[in-house]
């Protein structure tokens, strides 16, 4: 609606044209200034006072032209590819001959374009240097030659205060990004991305939580080839993010893409090929060890039973003898070596009027788990057209096609049991991958029995069959356009109008093949398939007025006013079916049973008003401030608008006269800022009381009130103070940035706050609680040596963030607790950080039956007052025996219950950051980059499930140390099939996951332009990069860099055997011509 009226007005404006009066004709010849040869096809134009082209023609084969001109005192312009543009006052002349000067002789000269670069906050055009806020900037040329698929991967460890980790090493899986800690419990701590001035949606269909909302689809953060990116800024303090208002509570990442510039056309070809290796898997039991474990755990449960299941009897007469009695390494069987091919080609150039950059990229990746991969084709066109001195049109267009293969999984992405890799760890190793007939001949099929001792084929599918025949494919198209018109109304006053469209279509296909489950006709799991369509379209408009007058006396002022709208519509439709006879026909339309069709739609709108001002006096005193109002359709009328003020002040001491004598001081700026951000409710129509279709009774349809009206629901707000300085010494040889911040979040929106069930509801969305993030960031860049042939520089960053929950409601309870194996108490405690773990303290294994007694606080054995005998130690309602786990009895009552639960650690690192070492000698350079996190705890769930000996899942070789008989002293309890409490959530599985990892090591060779003999090529760079070559850690899992994804704050810091990030080697070449 808004955008339409704007467009009409814009078009109306464009139609207002100059008046045309008397016309004359000018003729002439255009020649080369040196050779004097005529130039064929040169452009001749008439230009008005604002440099707008009025009329134009081109020269003929002899270099002659004739042009109709209008008006008094006409100006002519002459241009030809490879020549300098030339303008002439025509005066009264009727014949004008022109000689054009070639540009060849000036090729070595670097073309400097007078533009203000590095737009600091993505909104105005203030340089980072002149900001009083905390902004980190990264120039993508630093990252050239890294085999990265996404922006997030490239940024990891490079900017202080930004904590990036992997969610999985599978192709296309997302990264979790946190800027200055978790501010919210909404699960979404991802920052706002601003792409070329427009907020960029990083989620698709986040409103839908039915079916399988796929958090991993947060995906390749930006569907953008890293090769197209010019620079990235990270806005960390609230004064800088406040201009982005409600969406910016988690920080802002501003991405600027490369654009065409005024120079000769330049072609860049960038190609890299990588080979990817899976890190060594955890050592698991082989078939024989597994069978012995199973018998052990069975007899420990029922000592009187003597029967041995057929599967475990090494009986050659059994028809299935060849299918069991194997030593299968399932994890190795689903691994493969992956590769990546990444090709980018761009062409950029332009003249005075028009500039362009077009690029096309192709990315092809095969993952380290069989069946995973990603193919992406992307194109991008950035066009700038200067219509006149006062009017400029910018249009960006990009298209991306992502084709991503994952392994089939059932239900939630985080479902531990159902992922191929997790299944491979669990699957019984005495079973064969492929089926044998009773004579020992391979049948050519996968061995997927309907039932085996371990369980049904449905709950324990054949992992290799699942990886090979199963399907989880997402085919995503995304079109992104942005049109901007810039109009200079008066000197210093500019108006910008933007319309941006973002359209995403995603088609997801899933198939659970019968070859993996072995189920027969009639079963619901037979060839279960699902097809899902997600569509999303976002329309954003921006109307901006920037006043930037020329002031004398060292004053510099910028005032910005903006009105913007955001409208997002998303829809989803899904069709699921099962019972399809052949899995080759996996489209759900193929006559299945149990067809299920679901659909959902949602719309979100926001309106924003912003007023912002920025003032600089003599490069010394900087003052910024503003206020933004956001209206959001997700709140009720009373709380719909949020206001977000900001204020920042800086003092550049180095520009003061009394400091000017200090030659060694290049730059010194002190700054402080304050700002407020908001966080809106999630879900589209959250505040409304909604009646929804639900179950009925008998043949009557039912409708129920799904949730109550949320009249009290209001914005979650985060207030942040930041104090910092930027210091550069010795002609920028040493640069130090330091920031201290204090971030306070109140009215936290909690989507599932429990309410007394007497209301008829169990949970409600409501504001509660307060949280604080305090920390500091330190950043250092050292140019150690820079002499002719040799240079060495070093950069280092270190961050500390402390998260504290400050207030929870008196009657808050989210703790669902019984003494259950594998469960950590879901507790939120004031004074402790979010991501804290609570559980029991594990103290080893009872060696003998007589050890199993309780002690009081003085160390005396607790006696039963009735009998005088030692009181048997109880967990839950069962007695503990020899070989069982010892848990610390905190309250000395000979009972292990919830009163014995204590704080065990938390998932937030104490310190994190990265550092880089860059050497250059002549044409060679050697760059390496490292990241580290210190003091983060992780619950090693993978280890928990591979050491519990509780089910028939395969276990790690650690269980070979298990307790077997009275007197054994060990740290691993006895095997006990589905009984006992030997794997309660305890510190046994909480590990310190501090690490130092080498991210990249790159050796590059670049030719100098002079050395290049090949005609047409201006530079060539070749490089070899090793990626994730080593990680130093005491963590026993595969990868200590455990990311947090999903919406459950209690899932933070749990290692769930996702594909670890692989080791890879890349060979790349970059050519400019």
């Amino acid at each position, binding site marked *: *609606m*808004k955008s339409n*009226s*704007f467009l009409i*007005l814009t078009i*109306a*404006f464009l139609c207002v044209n100059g008046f045309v009066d008397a016309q004359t004709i000018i003729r002439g010849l255009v020649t080369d200034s040196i050779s004097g040869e005529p130039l064929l096809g040169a452009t001749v134009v008439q230009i008005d006072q604002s440099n707008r082209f009025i009329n134009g023609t081109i020269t003929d084969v002899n270099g002659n032209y004739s042009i109709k001109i209008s008006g008094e005192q006409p100006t002519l312009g002459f241009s030809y590819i490879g020549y300098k543009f030339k303008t002439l006052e025509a005066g009264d002349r009727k014949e004008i001959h022109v000689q054009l000067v070639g540009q060849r002789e000036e090729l070595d000269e670097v073309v400097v374009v007078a533009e203000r670069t590095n737009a600091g906050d993505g909104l105005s055009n203030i340089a980072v240097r002149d900001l009083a806020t905390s902004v980190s900037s990264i120039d993508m040329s630093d990252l050239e030659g890294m085999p990265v698929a996404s922006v997030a991967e490239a940024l990891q460890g490079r900017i202080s205060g930004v904590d990036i980790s992997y969610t999985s090493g599978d192709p296309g899986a997302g990264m979790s990004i946190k800027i200055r800690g978790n501010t919210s419990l909404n699960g979404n701590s991802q920052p706002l991305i601003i792409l070329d001035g427009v907020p960029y949606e990083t989620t698709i269909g986040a409103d839908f939580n039915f079916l399988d909302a796929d958090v991993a689809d947060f995906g390749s953060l930006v569907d953008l080839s890293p090769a197209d990116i010019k620079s990235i800024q990270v806005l960390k303090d609230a004064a800088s993010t406040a201009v982005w208002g409600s969406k910016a509570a988690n920080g802002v990442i501003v991405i600027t893409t490369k654009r065409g510039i005024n120079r000769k056309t330049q072609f860049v070809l960038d190609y890299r090929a990588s080979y990817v290796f899976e890190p060594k898997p955890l050592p698991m039991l082989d078939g024989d060890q597994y069978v012995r474990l199973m018998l052990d755990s069975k007899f420990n449960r029922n000592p009187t039973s003597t029967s041995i299941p057929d599967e475990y009897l090494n009986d050659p007469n059994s028809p299935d003898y060849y299918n069991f009695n194997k030593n299968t390494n399932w994890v190795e069987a689903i691994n493969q070596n992956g590769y990546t091919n990444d090709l980018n080609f761009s062409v950029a150039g332009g003249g005075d009027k028009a500039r362009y950059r077009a690029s096309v990229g192709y990315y092809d990746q095969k993952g380290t788990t069989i069946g995973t991969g990603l193919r992406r084709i992307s194109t991008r066109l950035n066009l700038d057209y200067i219509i006149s001195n006062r009017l400029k049109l910018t249009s960006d267009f990009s298209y991306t096609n992502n084709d991503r293969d994952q392994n089939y999984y059932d239900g939630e992405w985080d479902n531990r049991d159902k992922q191929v890799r997790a299944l491979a760890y669990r699957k019984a190793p005495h079973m064969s991958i492929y089926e044998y007939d009773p004579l020992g001949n391979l049948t050519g099929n996968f061995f997927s029995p309907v039932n085996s001792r371990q369980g049904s084929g449905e709950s324990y599918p054949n992992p290799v069959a699942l990886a090979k025949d199963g399907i989880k494919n997402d085919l995503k198209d995304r079109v992104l356009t942005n049109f901007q018109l810039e109009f200079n*109304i*008066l000197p210093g006053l500019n*108006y910008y109008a933007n319309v941006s469209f973002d359209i995403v279509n995603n088609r997801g296909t899933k198939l659970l093949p019968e070859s993996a489950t072995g189920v027969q006709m009639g079963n619901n799991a037979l060839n279960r398939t699902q097809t899902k369509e997600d569509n999303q379209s976002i329309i954003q408009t921006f*109307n901006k007025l920037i006043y930037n007058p020329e002031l004398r006396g060292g004053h510099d002022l910028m005032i910005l006013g903006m*009105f913007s*709208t955001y409208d997002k519509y998303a829809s989803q439709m899904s069709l699921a079916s099962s019972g399809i006879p052949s899995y080759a026909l996996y489209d759900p339309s193929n006559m299945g049973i149990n067809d299920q069709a679901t*659909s959902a739609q*949602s*719309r979100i*709108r926001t*309106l924003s008003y912003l007023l912002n001002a920025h003032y600089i006096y003599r490069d010394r005193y900087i003052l910024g401030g503003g206020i933004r109002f956001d*209206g*959001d*359709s997700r709140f009720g009328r009373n709380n719909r608008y949020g206001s977000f003020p900001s204020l920042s002040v800086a003092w550049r001491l180095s520009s003061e006269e009394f400091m000017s004598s200090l030659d060694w001081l290049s730059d010194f700026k002190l700054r402080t800022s304050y700002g407020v951000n908001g966080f809106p409710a999630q879900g589209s*129509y959250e505040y*409304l*009381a*909604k*009646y*929804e279709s*639900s*179950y*009925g*009774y*008998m*043949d*009557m*349809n*039912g*409708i129920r*009130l*799904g949730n*109550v*009206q*949320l*009249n*009290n*629901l209001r914005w979650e707000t985060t207030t942040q103070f930041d104090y910092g300085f930027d210091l550069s010494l010795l002609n920028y040889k040493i640069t130090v940035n330091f920031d201290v911040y204090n971030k306070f979040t109140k009215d936290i929106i909690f989507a599932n706050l*429990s309410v*007394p*069930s*007497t*209301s*008829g509801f*169990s949970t*409600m969305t*409501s504001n509660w609680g307060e949280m604080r993030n305090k920390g500091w960031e330190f950043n250092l860049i050292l140019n150690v040596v820079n002499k002719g042939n040799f240079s060495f520089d070093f950069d280092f960053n270190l961050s500390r963030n402390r998260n504290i929950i400050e207030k929870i409601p008196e*009657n*808050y*309870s989210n703790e*669902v607790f019984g003494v259950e194996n594998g469960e950590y108490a879901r507790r939120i405690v004031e004074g402790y950080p979010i991501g804290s773990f609570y559980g029991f303290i594990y103290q080893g294994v009872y060696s003998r039956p007589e050890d199993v007694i309780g002690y009081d606080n003085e160390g005396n054995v607790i006696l039963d007052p009735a009998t005088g005998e030692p009181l048997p130690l109880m967990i*839950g*309602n069962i007695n503990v025996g020899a070989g069982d786990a010892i848990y610390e009895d905190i309250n000395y009552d000979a009972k292990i219950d919830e009163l014995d639960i204590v704080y065990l650690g938390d998932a937030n690192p104490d310190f994190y950051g990265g550092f880089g070492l860059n050497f250059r000698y002549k044409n060679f350079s050697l760059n390496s980059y490292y990241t580290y996190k210190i003091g983060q705890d992780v619950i090693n769930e993978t280890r928990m499930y591979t050491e519990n000996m509780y089910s028939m899942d395969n276990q790690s070789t650690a269980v070979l140390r298990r307790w077997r008989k009275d007197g054994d002293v060990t740290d691993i309890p006895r095997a006990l099939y589905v009984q006992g409490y030997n794997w309660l959530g305890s510190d046994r599985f909480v590990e310190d996951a501090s690490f130092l990892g080498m991210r990249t090591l790159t050796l590059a060779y670049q030719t100098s332009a002079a050395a290049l003999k090949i005609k047409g090529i201006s530079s060539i760079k070749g490089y070899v990069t090793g990626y994730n070559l080593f990680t130093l850690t005491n963590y026993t899992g595969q990868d200590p860099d455990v990311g947090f994804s999903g919406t459950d704050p209690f899932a933070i810091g749990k290692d769930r055997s996702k594909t670890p990030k692989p080791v890879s080697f890349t060979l790349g070449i970059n050519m400019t011509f």
Partner: protein
Amino acid sequence: MKIFRIVIFLSSIALLLGNQACSEWLNLLPEDELVSDEFWMSQEDVESVLSNTYGTFSGEVKKLLLWGELRGGLMSEGRNIPSDPSRILKGDVTETNSLTSWSALYKVINGANQIIQFAPSVVDRDPSFSKLELNQIISEALFLRSISYFYLVRTFKEVPLILEPYTSDEQDYYPAKSTEEDIMSQIISDLNRALDNAVISFGSVEYDKGRATRYAIGALLADVYLWLDDYNNAIIHCDEIIGSGRFALLGAGNWFQNFYPGNSNSSIFEIQFSKRWGTTPGLYETFSYQRGRQYTINPRILDIYEPEDVRGLGTTYSSNNLEIWKYVGINPEEERGDAYNDNNFIIYRLADIMLMKAEALIQLDNFDDALSIINEIRTKRGIGETSMEPTKEAFEDLLLDERARELAAEGKFWFDLIRIGKRDNYRRKERVITALILNASADVILSLQTKFQDPNSWFLPVSRDELQINTNLQQNPYYQN
């Protein structure tokens, strides 16, 4: 002309910024759900909420059965009994037990409260919705609310009494408990109001058995009066049902028709399930040996059945596995299996009402009339008439045995025990305690016997989840530390 352009631009901006439509632009409504302002427009809206409220109640039948049966001593644990009911069965009752959750019944209450509050306004909006129809629907809602509270009172004794629907977050979500007297008097006034507008017949057998007719409401009212020891009123309502001519005791050969196919002639109110609507109560799966059998009939009480009693072997229980055959079989030999696992759950049937009347008569010392009712039932069940010395205690025992034979595992017997046990200042307390320790393990029987002397221990504790969220709730007396 330059000025002209500038004017166009500035006015266009002013137009965009100053648009009062902006606030409307942010008012969005979902496409696949109805917001409350658009709801409560037609009779269909009211009926849909009523249907969902019934549906919510029907989802709780298994818990209602366990509440009314677990501690009564007629059932024992089977192979796959989950740990929470097992603990209660053995006398270990704690506030962390999942069976202490009352949330679903408050969902029913909230649904009923909405109908009672909002349905009257629909009459003005929907011309086809008559006042009569409105009152009939409200009587069903009152019934659902009352039966929910009655279950809650019998299980927890005191619970919060909520009579207003929850529709906004501005309401008080933290109520305290109300007294048993207040809740019971609310139930009585609600049910009497419901009775005045109740439907005699909905026009189909399923609706007549499955929805709150006048007789279902009367049966509940009789039950409630009996709980309150108001014997005369209880008899009035029993008599109305017995004398209505719409219900008859099934003959000896037909007794099993109560359970298969169900909706028998003697049934007054039973929660309906059917494959046709895709609903099953999970009762077959709970009791079938093939499906793991969570509960069996208690082998220690089998001697209450005389050999010729049609309610014993092959009907109430099966021979070798002691399955509770009422829920497992379709006849003495055949199991329901997956094809017939859509058992109805009976809440009131005629024999129950007759025994209620007998109980009231006993309390009024009218032993002759009570005996003739009991003997009428016994005759129909294939066992002979009995006689008894005319003392209250003897007749109470006779009545309890008859209820056990007739209604075993139908979610009745534990409530019967408390009702009789608490009368006359706990005159029959020991009878309750005897039942409570029937399933306890030998080493704890002595201590349990002492524990259960406190009648507060007969009620379940308030769930710890509720206590933690709502600090205005007090734990039930026996469970306060």
